[in-house]
């Protein structure tokens, strides 16, 4: 069913009786060409691109709970392509371009809002690093602007310029960046994949991988065995758990990232803002809530909840940067399990097991990558070779030293 303004009007006038379920509720078939484990943003996007771009229609997505219930349903919705390193920037810029056409591609309004992002800096060293990054963005075909303190003040007069412990010296801006309605992204991909015939199977937990003589033959699930020529794993925080079923240890740790939303407020923030002297980033949703976050709690965990010290740390950053939010109330906090990789960058690659493919290590930056991750994983699954913008995301890069470490903090996941 195609969505349109006309359709909305027609249904409104006829009591909304014509709306159909956005996806079917199929039982699994015994065998598929490709089974994607994980009905989150990346798994659903993979299914969309597999079916729409790569012509793979005999595909299933298996999800242990309800689709879109992992990190795509609990994040701060930021979309940007402001990366510095060669391995990353082309990929994220590819993703940005997919975002820019996503609604038309999916016929679903994911409310991609290109309201811009500003990364503030407070020292000369930070400025130098942002200039390097902004230049890398432009050289890769993305957009970037450098603002000095006065220009920042012009655009964001409510920031703390007069009593700041770490004065704002300027900011790196990407105007094309912004936010998207996170749930709608998952639903839009699911709806599209479903329309192309992909079976989206909810409440179907993978309990094992059937591997014989080094080849993956399918997945054992709570709904029985599902055979597959190829199995792709896109389960973010659960990567360690699923891949251990294939006997693999990963360069990944699972950590919790908390995020926060305030009560609804009339518009105050024009863009996404990240603080350079504390752990705080924020945007305002269409509903009016300030959506904000900070650092991960910092210890390995699979529990989708965090603790008070980080809540306080994030709010301290917020108050230091924009003391006018003091009387806005924090409404809800939640935690998502992040697949923190050893260099802070993702992995989209084959594994040593034939027929088993892995997509993970997104740290807390997976949302913005959703379309490109799906596209590139689909490419890998369909063609058995990495997509040109994802060639750096190899599993063996830690062995060879080709790590992609934007922050320069090395093999300690909780610092990325």
């Amino acid at each position, binding site marked *: 069913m195609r*969505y349109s303004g006309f359709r*909305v009007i027609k249904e409104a006038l006829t009591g*909304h009786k014509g*709306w159909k379920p956005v996806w079917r509720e199929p039982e699994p078939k015994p065998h598929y060409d490709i089974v994607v484990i994980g009905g989150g943003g990346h798994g659903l996007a993979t299914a969309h691109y597999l079916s729409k771009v790569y012509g793979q229609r005999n595909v299933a997505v298996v999800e242990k709970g309800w689709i879109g219930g992992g990190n795509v*349903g609990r994040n701060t919705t930021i979309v940007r392509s402001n990366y510095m390193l*060669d391995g990353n920037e082309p990929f994220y810029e590819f993703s940005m371009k997919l975002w820019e056409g996503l609604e*038309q591609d999916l016929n*679903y*309004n994911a*409310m991609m809002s290109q309201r811009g992002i500003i990364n503030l800096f*407070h*020292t000369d060293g930070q400025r*130098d690093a942002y*200039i390097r*990054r*902004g230049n*890398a963005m*432009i*050289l890769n*075909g993305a957009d970037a*602007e*450098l603002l000095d303190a006065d220009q920042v003040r012009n655009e964001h007069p409510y920031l703390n310029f007069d*009593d700041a*412990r*770490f004065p704002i010296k300027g900011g790196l801006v990407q105007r094309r960046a912004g936010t998207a309605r996170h*749930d*709608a992204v998952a639903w839009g991909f699911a709806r599209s994949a479903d329309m192309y015939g992909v079976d989206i199977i909810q409440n179907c937990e993978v309990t094992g991988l059937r591997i014989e003589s080094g080849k993956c033959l399918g997945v054992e699930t709570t709904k029985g065995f599902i055979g597959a020529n190829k199995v792709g794993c896109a389960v973010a925080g659960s990567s360690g758990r699923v891949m251990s079923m294939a006997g693999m240890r990963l360069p990944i740790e699972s950590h919790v990232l908390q995020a926060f939303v*305030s*009560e*609804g*407020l*009339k*518009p*105050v923030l024009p863009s996404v803002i990240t603080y350079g*002297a504390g752990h705080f980033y924020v945007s305002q949703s*269409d509903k*009016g809530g300030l959506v904000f976050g900070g650092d991960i709690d910092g210890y390995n965990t699979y*529990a989708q909840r965090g*603790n*008070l010290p980080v809540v*306080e740390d*994030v709010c301290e950053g*917020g*108050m230091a940067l924009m*003391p*006018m939010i*003091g*009387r*806005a*109330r*924090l409404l809800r*906090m939640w935690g998502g399990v992040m697949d923190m990789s050893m260099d802070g960058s993702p992995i989209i690659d084959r594994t040593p097991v034939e027929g088993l493919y892995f997509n993970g290590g997104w740290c807390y930056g997976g949302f913005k990558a959703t379309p490109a991750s799906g596209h590139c994983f689909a490419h890998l699954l369909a063609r058995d070779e990495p997509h040109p913008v994802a060639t750096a995301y190899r599993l063996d890069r830690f062995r*060879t*030293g080709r790590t992609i*470490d934007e*922050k*320069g*903090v*090395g*093999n300690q996941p909780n610092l990325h």
Partner: protein
Amino acid sequence: MTQSNRLGGGQIDRNTSLTFRFDNRSYTAHPGDTLASALLANDVRLIGRSFKYHRPRGLLTAGSEEPNGMVELRTGARKEPNTRATTIEMFDGLEARSQNRWPSLKFDALAVNDLFSNFLSAGFYYKTFMWPAAFWEKLYEPMIRRAAGLGSLSMEDDPDEYDKGFRHCDLLIIGAGPAGLMAALTAGRAGADVILADEDFALGGRLNSESFAVGDHSAPDWAAQVVAELSSMPNVRLMPRTTVIGAFDHGIYGAVERTGDHLPTLPDGKPRQILWRIYTQKALLCAGATERPIAFENNDRPGIMMASAMRTYANRFAATPSQRVAIFTNNDDGHRTAADLHTKGVKIAAVVDVREDAPGSYDYEVLKGAQVTDTKGRLGLTFVEVTLSDGSSRTLDCGALGVSGGWNPNVHLTCHQRGRPVWNDDLAAFVPGADLPVGLSVAGAANGVMTTYGALKSGAEGAAEALERKGALPDLPEAEDAPVKQKPFWYVEGCKRAWVDQQNDVTVKDVKLSYQEGFRSVEHLKRYTTLGMATDQGKTSNITGLAIMAEVAGKSIPEVGTTIFRPPYTPIPIATFAGRMKGQEFHPTRLTPSHYWAKERGAVFVEAGNWLRAQWFPLPGETHWRQSVDREVRETRASVGVCDCTTLGKIDVQGTDAAEFLNRIYANGFAKLPVGKTRYGLMLREDGMVMDDGTAARMAEDHFVVTTTTANAVSVYRHMEFVRQCLYPDMDVQLISTTEAWAQFAVAGPNARKLLQKIVDPEFDLSNEAFPFMACGNITVCGGLRARLFRISFSGELAYEIAVPSRYGDALMRRLMAEGEEFNVVPYGTEALGVMRVEKGHAAGNELNGTTTALNLGLGKMVSKKKDSIGSVLSEREALVEPDVLRLVGIKPVQPEDKITAGGHLMNADGPVDAANDQGYVTSAVYSPILNSNIGLGLVKNGAERLGEKMRLVSPLTDLTVEVELVSAHFVDPEGERLRA
């Protein structure tokens, strides 16, 4: 206006009158009122507008679960949007305004949305606004954003103070209703350390709202008596106005105490709110229950509220929303409200009970087996349409309707560690499950015990069990103990627009549409319709939504599932979580020993981590920072300069294995370093990247003094302790950070020795022969003051670093300046320091960026392969030793006046300018007053082999393209003659 809806009795102080303003009209109230009760007493029912359809709304509840009655409280910088009128304690001069309406509350232009509600059904925005693509940001979204949101921020900095604190107890009791009070009494009398917290300003919970007796007293009197006894116990701490917001790991609870919100103005220094972390052995949740509504046609008009809230307003606040009231209920509790209101003289139009077997009354009419099928009244309820059991209709003339759909236990905190509540058929409600946070138990209505006597008993038992105390419980007073009778009833069949979530405007129809479109999991329902996502977090709506979904799906409610609750229990100001950590207090400020002296000299300071360092020292007449910095460099290189380098990390390493320990820590060797010598040390991370650099001075056979960069002082020390304790636990070596213990100054320049000779005590020979480059030693200065001297140089000049105990730092700096006058000694700041180190080609923070190896930095040979050291093995991975890896080079513009910029990228002299042809980047750029040229350092592919090559430095971000030449990074004194002089 006089308080026309004020009743008799109540717990308000009628002897005192308070004045308050709502939407610029003045009213009166009494201490003990909330804004909500005062508005009702003054016959104000219309308080706000809903989120989506801008429907007129009044109060639904009398507590923190309120979805509708939200106002902007106070004015100016203290304006507080979205404040629930039900939780605002009245004070004199209170000022509040309605919100989310324009131009006025009574006439709101966006109420036009209500006419188009058919088009604005759940999720409509996902299906439209897509064409043309560019219109989203330009047209649709700004429109939506303006309409959305609720209250508005002042946009001014929050002027109030907030604080944080820590408390400890044996037993934290959350909620001071019958269960909580009885629990506190039990635990308090048993001698335990107890904290009793309640969000209300009056302790007592529901007891304050009821007319029945507890023991020989009225319910509120009994509560007051218990509170009085508890206040007298030194081991019991009462915390009214305190919301326990979350249950965190290991028995830690977050709690917010509103210390100042009930005051017209805060006394100086008094915080507005305090965030407490309460460390508990055990906790007992006595949070009570929340009454739930029934959905029916137009059930959102001002005047329609929860029956229990009506009872609270009447009994506790002596206020009624109207003098003529009807009740709609599916259970006996609704009748209690009717009886209490009747007793207070309010006319009961009728009690509409869905049950055929509902109890009757002699005082007012009870319509058994009837349902409310519609309501009338644009800005406030005027009529209620009732369909009687025989199918006939009846219109009730009333200004308020109390609704009771049963009670939901307040299980929220039991879910904070992802425990799931379980369904209880008798109550038709979720009660706490088995998976509670460790140490937490539940008593009273929160645990599904719905009678007063039951709650008292459950509180006493809960406390005794939590404290593992045996023996007799305190005597329990007599109290009502009638079994709860109800018939589960969620919504009136056939209704078209019946609200489930009033704030977010989610109707029964939206829930059904969500199911129809496949959003059938509870979480999908929530997200698709926004049910339960408003500021009340669905406290009055979630279960109803679930029940409707269950019915449509043909499943039971527990089969459909439940959503779990997340902290905080009620919304909390962001400022409260930040406490005092804002403005200048955001981080501590560390001052160098010469700070006050530098301030006297007019230094400009810069943040270096938490330190403040002198950046440069402007002289009168210098108008641009470059003038000062150029002068400081020139004069240092010409004669002598002094710089405070105390901020460098200093670590004392002692023990018989100290040298071997440093051998493991550093990539280069230290075992053979003689006593009295210093060596540059290169420290790698285990992944082979450079972690830090510094010097290690051997003061004695078993004693080294290690320095680190300012930025890494903490992390290097932590790393060294890791290596010592976790990798080589039997090494005889001890570490201690002495960064704060020693003031350290660099004295650099050709006259450095001459200057030092004037302050170093004469028995120490500073001649080049006796104290050569890289020498170190313990000395005394200024007539016996112990000091350490290191002949090391960051500037490339003849230079020393001299350290004295911190408290002498200021004096030493002043002495150096005084003694140095004859050499025109100059103090220099971090800028000049940076210029000189670039001139000398020393890597610093911009080069040690965590992605560079020793090879990248031109220090590859330092990594000894004859010994085990951290990072040595992984530094040899294939990609790190390829021929075209980045190498550190010097960069000079072909035209010296051309500016170069750190962060610029380097491209070959010819060919395309794009990422694919990127050759490297500039790490540091400065103006060298010595070379009269801009210069820089950079990392370039195979750069060491490309010296002399011309390249293009491009910085499209700053609109710069410059022709540059790759040169040796050692711009000044490449042979190192000066520093050995």
